[in-house]
């Protein structure tokens, strides 16, 4: 069956596009990519190489952790699979083999593309060439795809595999700096290990197709296929202006909040009435932060740690700081309390803005203080506290500008328009501040701008 499918696909591609055309295009694309990477000029002041493994490992861990957020089956099947699984004498593995091979192959290609982009970025930002990132990306994406299947089916093998991958990432963080400086041994080893783990997980995922037949995801996968078709129809209708997307989204969010088990049990006592509207909004923001999904809290912690690690590694001034300010915008969108619009509440701008901003900033301040304490206790450099203060100032500025942007534009702070305006504002302000002086000036300036605008701006 597999041979027949492959043969049919081969002839279809040949007839539709022509194999010589495809080979020609692939050749030139590969040539452009390699040429682009080789001609990529590093920036004038490259980032410290020591920060590279931390950044890569954080991204790899996020990619793996995000697997557990997935609520839909990773593989989508069609009606032909349903017919074959239900009526043909073939075992499930044989029926699903072509689809699974296609699924895993596509993930390897996506991973390789991501790895290539990372290779290019690393060459520009860190002034080191690490071609092994292509293989690392492919291996990681394969591992991610296989883990997604195993996690969705609640297979016990998923946990050991995820732990192995996490240990691999941690090992990379510990030995990465050394490896990069001594001829890129660590990334090559990491690429080999990620690929081997990915293959192992893919084989396990395939083997389980027969062991636990019918796997739970099969039914979901077919339902999703039908659902996707109806979503496509809905999207087409929406683009014709016949449906109101906002209403649909609101309903979906409302249901999702109600369904999340146990979140209503997480409570905070309401503040005393003497704190007024500011206390009320701050209480609501703190509740929202408390009730955020656990994985989101972990991601928030990791992102704060990343900002601190980059700053304590010495990334201050110029373009990198502006980019870091934009990255702080991501943090801000999760630290900021929920919007109070469109309810016409009698809230003055300070009560609204301060209430939305302060609980998240309080949490960020505590975490930065913990990072600085841990770093100085483990023999870090003398400037650990300054890096923490600078990090807090960046996050404060990003959070306040996001609050102002979302209020001025009358949109949610998760909307891209609010993000864009906030990024533009905080990036410009940080660029100006970095032109005026060093980290001390930036810290004081950013804190002053953030809290000053909370008090003054509408």
């Amino acid at each position: 069956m597999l041979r027949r499918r492959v043969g049919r696909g081969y002839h279809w591609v040949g007839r539709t596009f022509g194999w010589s055309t495809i080979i020609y295009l692939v050749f030139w694309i590969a040539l452009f990519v390699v040429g682009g990477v080789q001609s990529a000029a590093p920036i004038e002041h490259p980032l410290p190489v020591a920060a590279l493994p931390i950044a890569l490992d954080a991204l790899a861990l996020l990619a793996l952790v995000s697997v557990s957020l997935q609520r839909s089956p990773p593989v989508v099947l069609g009606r032909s699979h349903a017919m074959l699984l239900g009526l043909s004498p073939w075992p499930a593995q044989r029926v699903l083999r072509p689809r699974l091979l296609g699924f895993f192959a596509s993930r390897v290609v996506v991973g390789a593309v991501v790895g290539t982009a990372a290779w290019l970025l690393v060459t520009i930002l860190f002034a080191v060439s690490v071609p092994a990132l292509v293989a690392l990306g492919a291996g990681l994406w394969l591992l991610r795809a296989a883990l997604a299947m195993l996690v969705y089916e609640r297979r016990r093998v998923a946990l050991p595999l995820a732990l192995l991958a996490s240990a691999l990432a941690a090992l990379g963080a510990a030995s990465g700096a050394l490896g990069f400086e001594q001829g890129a041994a660590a990334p090559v080893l990491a690429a080999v290990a990620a690929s081997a783990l990915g293959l192992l997980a893919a084989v396990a995922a395939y083997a389980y197709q027969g062991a636990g037949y019918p796997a739970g995801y099969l039914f979901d996968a077919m339902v999703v296929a039908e659902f996707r078709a109806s979503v496509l129809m809905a999207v087409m209708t929406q683009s014709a202006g016949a449906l109101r997307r906002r209403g649909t989204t609101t309903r979906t969010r409302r249901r999702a909040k109600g369904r999340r088990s146990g979140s209503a049990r997480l409570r905070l006592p309401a503040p005393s009435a003497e704190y007024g509207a500011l206390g009320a909004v701050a209480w609501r923001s703190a509740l929202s932060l408390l009730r955020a999904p656990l994985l989101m809290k972990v991601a928030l912690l990791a992102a704060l740690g990343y900002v601190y690690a980059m700053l304590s590694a010495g990334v201050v001034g110029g373009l990198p700081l502006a980019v870091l300010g934009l990255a702080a915008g991501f943090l801000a969108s999760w630290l900021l309390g929920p919007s109070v619009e469109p309810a016409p509440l009698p809230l003055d701008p300070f009560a609204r803005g301060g209430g939305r901003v302060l609980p998240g900033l309080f949490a960020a301040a505590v975490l930065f203080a913990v990072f600085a304490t841990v770093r100085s206790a483990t023999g870090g450099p003398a400037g650990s506290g300054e890096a923490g203060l600078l990090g807090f100032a960046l996050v404060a500025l990003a959070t306040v500008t996001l609050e102002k942007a979302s209020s001025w534009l009358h949109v949610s702070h998760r909307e891209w328009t609010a993000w864009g305006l906030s990024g533009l504002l905080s990036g410009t302000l940080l660029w100006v501040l970095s032109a005026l002086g060093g980290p001390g000036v930036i810290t004081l300036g950013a804190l002053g701008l953030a809290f000053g605008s909370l008090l003054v701006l509408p």
Partner: protein
Amino acid sequence: MSQPTPRTTKATDGSAPQEGVELQDVSVVFGGEAVLADVDLLLPAGRTALLRGPNGAGKSTLLRAIAGLLPFKGEILLFGARPRTLEGRAAFAFVADVPTLFEDLTVREHAAFLSRAYARPESEERTLAWYERFELAERVDEFPGTHSRGMRHKAALALALGLEPDLLLLDEPFNTLDADARVTLGEALRQRAQDGRINLLSAHDQSLERDLEAEVVEVRGGHVSRLRG
């Protein structure tokens, strides 16, 4: 049936009344087309006014304009304050036909949040009492997203009644309520009017005019006329 005679609703001396709601030459334009045109309306304290008219006549638009949720031309004064000012916003509570609730707060937390946001701490207990009267007491520790449309409406009404605002704006409040809740809301609105507060609501039910002892304000083709009361 004889056609009731429209009577002028504008303040005769031209001054803005401080004890009620006044609309002067209010127009709302959507896409170049006037949904409401030159509306004049005066509602003194202690009244219940019933907005009536066909679908699409502009009843909800009028309520939203008074709540400051829509841009308008002309002048709207709520007890002497404009609707978008803090004083104006503190003067009223608005319950839309699809009520806006905070989906991240439980129903009980809504009472705590709004009592503090409106600086009326005593209203929290009152709202909890209204939850009981609307038979929501057993579900107050749940998120409103898990509730039916009718229950959401009851929660929003309980919150608005608990705040005891001088002006209550309700957009078709009886539509989704069960029989007991309709009686409870009717009693509450009558009591509010007796206490000198203003209720302005839209509804299609003919019997409400008598039940609520309300004045009828006809909205038709973007124009408003007070018919009887």
